[in-house]
């Protein structure tokens, strides 16, 4: 009896302890290891940081050559002072990991298609599907090729290895207690870093910025609309396209033999040769109007007589933030700016001599080739009139708590077959192989290694020569007065009549692989107008000798160029206002037209809203009501105009906002406007009226009689969300104005992810802010501390110290790393 009592008690104790020590699956819901999590000494409670974090004064670490001094400023920006460049990058790895380890690890796992190894119990089949697609996209193999390219170059190899060693030095020090809380919640541990992981992170960025190719959607559009309409809606250069990056009239310093019909004619390459629509793509990142701004003005345009450079890349508004601010200083370097956790160097920043910034090139850099199989085994495909053997990549995905999944990915001379079997829409007859400029071996990291210490325009060009994908518009300003912009990246030489849409494939002739020489990429130095700028618009006008496509911006670019043309004597304050400019060019063009197409009777009962729209100054400021009324109307207008796409099972590509405006303005009687499933024939004016009625009904139910709910920021509901979409670690209802296609491109989930202004007055003076905080730990006061100031358009002066003494004299916390 006594034994039984003891036995029972001990069994209950053991069972309960084991249960609480492990994650469980109850009713298909993931339950984290509760006992470990609630332990106040080691669990979640240990991730709580004091409001004023105290850094350990001195840390001994193997792998350093000398001493490194870190000065943490009042926003927890680390200012790294090292005696050698190698130590500097080692320390960058260490400090970045100490603030952002989980995020870095997660993003590289996502890039590699290795999330199932840790997240399958939590997220289930959807994470496996994601991994399968990443592998088929060739992310892992292209990162491996990229890492090999990095390691071939001694300088890059040194930097990548030092950075990696620094991260690993941090990982080795970690006990369970210090693990970032996401590891505790999801119940796994970080794995060792390697240069491959840095390559993966850069590929992840490449994917985020270039997987929005519209090829399948455009091809489908040509099945949906007749050719005349499709040509109009999906043209390369819509009528009236203005303000390319390189000012019109800039002469090209090279000539290439060119087919005169090539550029003017926007005929897409191929219309699907099989029945049905091309399958729906998994494009986790695409959103119209997403992009970035950058510009620089010469001294002739600035108050100080020195250049000013501005940059604000628009990315998903996530926590932990995509950017991490840092200053890096060694005998060769002194650079400040935004870095990407997981990659060495500063990506958008400045040093004593130059400043640079990036926007996305937006050209379509992925091609899809039709593959004709001999039979269902897919072991042979048509090539140059004969049958060629297919190679198969055996790809193993490890899954936590399950047997690994092996996929056989067919690889052809045209590329990997991304979509097939269960990943593809049913009823489609042929597979597509994908080719992407991210597969061309390049050493993008070297661009930043060199740019971080560049001193003049020549250095900038040399640095850019290493950059392949994702093609970026690199803006440049130099203390000596020079400004420049170059669209740099690998772009292929497309013959006339190809590219936009699906490539025919099947022969060596059809395969496009020749890269445009980098010296012939669009570039301008010190243009007469006194400024350079880019906002994801066309890089050139139609005189550029090469063919390119993409869904380009038509609004931010015009507003930016207007402001930079109209103004002179610009200073930092002007640039702050300009980066936060909320002028809605779309509305300024659409609204007068739409209002002229409806009658007062259409507004019956809502005359007050008509009044609000009529007196609107077209600024999407946070508290205004007019932007919500307009946006609601425009959304319904587009949806009703393009009802052709309703029910299409396949990849969709709606025409751009600008092309749609041209249609409404110039061809209001186009049959595109007609709603298919009605007996009547609708024209553009009718669509304006019908969509207004729908918008008013929506707005009625939203406002419930009070316009307060229609204030723009409430209607838009900007949120900055934790990468895992954990609601308690996200921020909602941010009070910010702007929208897509507005300079302040802050929409619901996307926005200016790093605003930077660099002026070369009195040396260098810089300001910046991003919607997040330096710490990736939700338990830190520095996790989301900058969001409010960011939403309010405020900035921080960036503390760019000349040397360690200056850093020590400032309000900073000192930390010493030694070996």
């Amino acid at each position: 009896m006594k034994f039984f009592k003891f036995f029972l008690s001990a069994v209950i104790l053991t069972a309960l302890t084991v249960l609480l020590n492990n994650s469980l699956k109850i009713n298909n819901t993931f339950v984290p290891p509760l006992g470990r999590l609630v332990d106040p000494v080691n669990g979640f409670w240990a991730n709580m940081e004091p409001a004023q974090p105290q850094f350990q004064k001195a840390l001994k670490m193997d792998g350093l050559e000398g001493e490194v001094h870190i000065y943490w400023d009042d926003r927890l920006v680390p200012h790294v002072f090292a005696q050698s460049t190698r130590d500097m990058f080692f320390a960058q790895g260490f400090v970045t990991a100490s603030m952002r380890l989980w995020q870095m690890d997660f993003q590289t796992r996502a890039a590699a298609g290795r999330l199932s190894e840790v997240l399958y119990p939590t997220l289930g089949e959807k994470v496996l599907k994601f991994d399968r697609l990443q592998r088929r996209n060739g992310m892992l193999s292209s990162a491996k090729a990229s890492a090999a390219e990095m390691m071939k170059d001694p300088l890059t190899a040194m930097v990548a290895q030092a950075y990696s060693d620094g991260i690993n030095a941090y990982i080795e020090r970690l006990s369970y207690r210090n693990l970032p809380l996401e590891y505790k919640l999801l119940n796994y541990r970080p794995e060792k870093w390697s240069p491959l992981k840095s390559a993966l992170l850069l590929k992840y960025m490449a994917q985020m910025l270039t997987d929005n190719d519209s090829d399948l959607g455009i091809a489908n559009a040509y099945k949906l609309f007749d050719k005349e309409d499709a040509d109009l809606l999906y043209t390369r250069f819509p009528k009236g396209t203005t303000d390319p990056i390189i000012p019109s009239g800039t002469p090209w310093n090279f000539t290439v033999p060119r087919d005169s019909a090539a550029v003017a004619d926007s005929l897409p390459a191929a219309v699907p040769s099989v029945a049905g629509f091309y399958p729906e793509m998994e494009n986790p990142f695409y959103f119209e109007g997403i992009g970035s701004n950058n510009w620089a003005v010469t001294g002739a345009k600035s108050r100080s007589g020195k250049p000013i450079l501005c940059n604000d890349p628009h990315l998903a508004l996530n926590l932990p933030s995509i950017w991490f601010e840092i200053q890096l200083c060694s005998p060769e370097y002194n650079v400040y700016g935004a870095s990407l956790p997981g990659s060495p160097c500063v990506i958008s920043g400045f040093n004593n001599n130059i400043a640079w910034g990036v926007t996305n090139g937006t050209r379509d850099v992925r091609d899809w080739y039709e593959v004709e199989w001999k039979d269902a085994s897919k072991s042979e495909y048509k090539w140059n009139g004969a049958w060629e053997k297919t190679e198969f990549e055996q790809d193993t995905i490890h899954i936590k708590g399950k047997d690994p999944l092996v996929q056989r990915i067919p690889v052809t001379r045209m590329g990997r077959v991304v979509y097939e079997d269960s990943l593809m829409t049913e009823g489609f007859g042929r597979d597509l192989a994908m080719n992407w400029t991210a597969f061309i071996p390049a050493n993008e990291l070297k661009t930043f290694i060199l740019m971080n210490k560049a001193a003049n325009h020549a250095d900038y060009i040399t640095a850019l020569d290493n950059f392949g994908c994702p093609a970026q518009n690199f803006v440049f300003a130099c203390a000596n007065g020079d400004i420049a912009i170059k669209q740099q990246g690998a772009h292929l030489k497309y013959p006339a009549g190809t590219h936009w849409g699906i490539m025919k494939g099947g022969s060596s002739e059809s395969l496009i692989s020749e890269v445009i020489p980098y010296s012939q990429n669009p570039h301008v130095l010190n243009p007469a107008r006194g400024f350079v700028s880019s906002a994801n618009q066309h890089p050139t006008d139609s005189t550029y000798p090469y063919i390119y496509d993409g869904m380009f911006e038509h609004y931010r670019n015009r507003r930016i160029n207007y402001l930079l043309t109209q103004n002179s004597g610009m200073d930092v304050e002007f640039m702050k206002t300009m980066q936060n400019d909320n002028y809605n060019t779309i509305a300024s063009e659409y609204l007068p037209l739409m209002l002229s197409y409806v009658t007062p009777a259409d507004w019956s009962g809502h005359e007050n809203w008509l009044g609000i729209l009529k007196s609107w100054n077209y600024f999407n400021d946070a508290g205004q009501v007019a932007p919500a009324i307009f946006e609601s109307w425009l959304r319904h207008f587009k949806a009703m105009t393009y009802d052709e796409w309703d029910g299409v099972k396949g990849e969709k590509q709606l025409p751009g906002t600008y092309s749609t405006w041209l249609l409404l303005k110039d061809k209001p009687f186009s049959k595109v406007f007609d709603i298919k499933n009605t007996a009547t024939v609708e024209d553009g004016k009718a669509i304006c009226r019908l969509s207004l009625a729908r918008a008013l009904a929506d707005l009625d139910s939203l406002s419930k009689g009070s316009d307060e709910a229609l204030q723009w920021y409430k209607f838009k509901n900007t949120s900055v969300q934790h990468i895992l979409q954990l609601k308690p670690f996200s921020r909602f209802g941010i009070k910010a104005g702007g929208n897509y296609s507005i300079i302040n491109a802050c929409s619901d989930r996307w926005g200016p992810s790093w605003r930077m202004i660099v002026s070369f007055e009195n040396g260098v003076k810089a300001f910046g802010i991003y919607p997040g905080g330096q710490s990736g730990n939700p338990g830190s006061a520095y996790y989301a501390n900058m969001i409010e100031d960011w939403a309010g358009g405020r900035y921080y002066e960036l503390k760019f110290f000349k040397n360690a003494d200056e850093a020590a004299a400032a309000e900073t916390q000192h930390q010493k790393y030694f070996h």
Partner: protein
Amino acid sequence: MKRFLITTILTALVAFGLEWLLPWWIIAIVPFVFCAFILPKPGQAFLSGFLAIGLMWAGTAAWRMSEGSPEFVAALSEVITLPPQASWFFLVTVFVGALIGGLSGLSGALLARMRS
């Protein structure tokens, strides 16, 4: 009574110290050992372990909370699908610790009884 107090205090102190070196489950062992040797009465042993670990965890959590922010604890509460209030996470913490501590003390006492 004195024996109860000594056991409880010793358990709390030793468990707290060992938790910095070992995983959380050490709290399932410390009360067991002390009760097996010092406090072999099952009722008292359960109460001793319950109080020792419960109070030690409550104190540690309160100390952590005084340095950080209650909003974060409320967020933690929400993450494990409790109502978004710091007090919920605190209560669950104390309850888990106390329960394991109590069961551990009880088992220790029952082992001692079995052998006597």
